[in-house]
């Protein structure tokens, strides 16, 4: 954190960068829709879609939410709750489907 109380900022991207990011997002979206129709991907459809959506998510937060251009402190402020939310969601899923319970571990659901 800067001494004067303001978070340090780096140069923001140009309009051209934003347009290229938009193009990349369009391509990734087309891929997301496309893999659904390719039989070879059916076995790994869920991980493929997760990877593609994670890539889109990263592009949006890095460029359109300015985290790449802003202070690293903001990346921490965004990333820490994100990690926390991921942990909470995983715990919730495990709880919800009974995997954490003895009943779940025994396969009884």
């Amino acid at each position, binding site marked *: 954190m800067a001494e004067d*109380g303001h978070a340090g900022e780096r140069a923001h991207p140009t309009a051209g960068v934003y347009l290229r990011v938009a193009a990349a997002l369009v391509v990734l979206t087309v891929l997301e829709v496309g893999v659904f129709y390719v039989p070879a991907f059916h076995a790994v459809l869920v991980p493929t879609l997760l990877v593609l959506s994670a890539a889109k998510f990263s592009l949006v937060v890095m460029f359109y939410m300015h985290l790449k251009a802003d202070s690293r402190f903001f990346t921490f402020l965004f990333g820490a*709750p994100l990690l926390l939310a991921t942990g909470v969601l995983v715990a919730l899923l495990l709880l*919800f489907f009974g995997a954490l319970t003895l009943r779940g571990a025994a396969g009884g659901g």
Partner: protein
Amino acid sequence: MSEATGGGLKSWLTTTDHKRIGLLYFWTAFAFFLVGGVEALVIRLQLAHPDGHLVGAETYNQLFTMHGTTMIFLALMPLGSSFFNYIVPLQIGARDVAFPRLNAFSYWVFLFGGLLLNASWFAGPLFHAGVLNVAPDAGWFGYANLTERQYSPGPNIDFWLLGLQILGISSLAAGFNFVVTILNLRAPGLKMMRLPTFSWMTLVTNFLIITAFPVITVGLLFLMFDRFFGTHFYVREAGATPVLWQHLFWLFGHPEVYILILPAMGIVSDVLPTFSRKPLFGYTVVVYSGILIGFMGWGVWSHHMFSVGLGPIADSVFAATTMLIAVPTGVKIFNWIATLWGGDIRGTTALHFAVGFIAMFIIGGLSGVSHASPPADLQQTDSYYVVAHIHYVFFGGTIFGLFAGIYYWWPKMTGRLLDETLGKVHFWLQFIGMNLAFFPMHFIGLLGMPRRVYTYSPDLGVSDLNLVSTIGALLIGLSILILVANLWRSRTHGAPASNDPWGGATLEWGIPSPPPPYNFSVIPTVESRLPRWRTERHGPMKDPPARPPAPIHMPGGSWWPIVAAFGLPVMALAPLTHTLWVVFVGAAILLFGIYRWAFEPFEV
């Protein structure tokens, strides 16, 4: 200077000044606090004797639901917000919050959401309900499937879920505003580890708000779809489970507990050093404990659900995390006591409430630890023991902390001191009243009286304890009347407050009481954690000059926040009345307000 700094109704409706918005939050939240208090008194009068018949079962259901909802969402949270608004910009050396119009929008959305929720007390005839009251009636945590259309066909739950959705928008908008304000608008030299503890806890609280409220928003959205569009998110017959609601609600609900208590902890952490004339003992540890509580608060939600039957592994994990979260809380308590130790203590009313907070919160914390044990919790769940616990935390904790804040900052906010004698009478009546009201509930609960039931049999053997509890509640009511009299009296009879009536260490005490619209004639440069006190390495800072050396431009007021906010309750009327076109009218008002807001030359 803007129109918002003049007098008259228009200046208040259009104000974007954080101080005025802070006062609006204060008076509105205080009014809702009185409403919630009257609801509580009716509940207690009903339970004063066995087989009570002051109200019937349905009205009783509405009373306890609205009491909880009102106190949490319309009184305690916004009372905290009134201090965020008024005090935080002053503590960080800023002229206003980061987004002044968004701040006004937050307030108006809060007001309209609160009015919509409470309109349910009188809206029965509009829905041909055959009764006057159609207030929400499924408890403040609105468990599915009680809230499904099948079991609650009237508009009661619709008011609740739509009101809470609107209030959530207000909280989120304010949350983002305060996070940005504290991170970006600090005065030169005011590094994070020089922030006053109240501002630190405000930051943590608002992080919790912007992370926790989306969870209840999702839960309420599912409920809205179930009730209005025939989906089955919580309908067991359709293969879903109502337990999903419990998970979503408590994922929000437990961080909400810390949203309510952390501001009070921040206030107490500022009040104790001032009236002990000592720096806060272990400032860094207190701050990190607050941050740790913010994180750990996300890992304990299922302790509200031990009776669901999650299984021994899940129960053990959540029992352990719940016991662990008591550690940073205990750390804070020891630091507060160490702050008082050996201090030059002045027994002001604010200090009374701060010390009362510590004592009462310890009791609430200890009964909380007893819930952390699943076998014990199974005996306590849904009994009055839980009611005792929640009131020691929220009344003994949050309310005592907030009242310490009122007595501490009222001179800064109004330029008038509150009467100390009346203040101490208020404190002792409230202190005795709350212990009479809530301590017997531990026994009432363990003796087997369930909560949320409108009456009880004399055979249960809890009649005398219930009568004591009701007498305590009436004492609390009397004490609040004394506070109201004190606040009212201070308008004309309160002694004028100097810049710094208490000898405070933080920036707000270096400027006039009440502060001018621009707050600081010159933005201060901060060199120490206690800028207005002499420390080992720093002398006290020079206060800003009484008159600004150059004209200071402040932004004007704006109509568009209130216009945009008004669109939301109009939109809510559409599902309430099952009239589609109304939603388009509401959306048009909202969008028109936002559009004009976006293109308004606000800085001119």
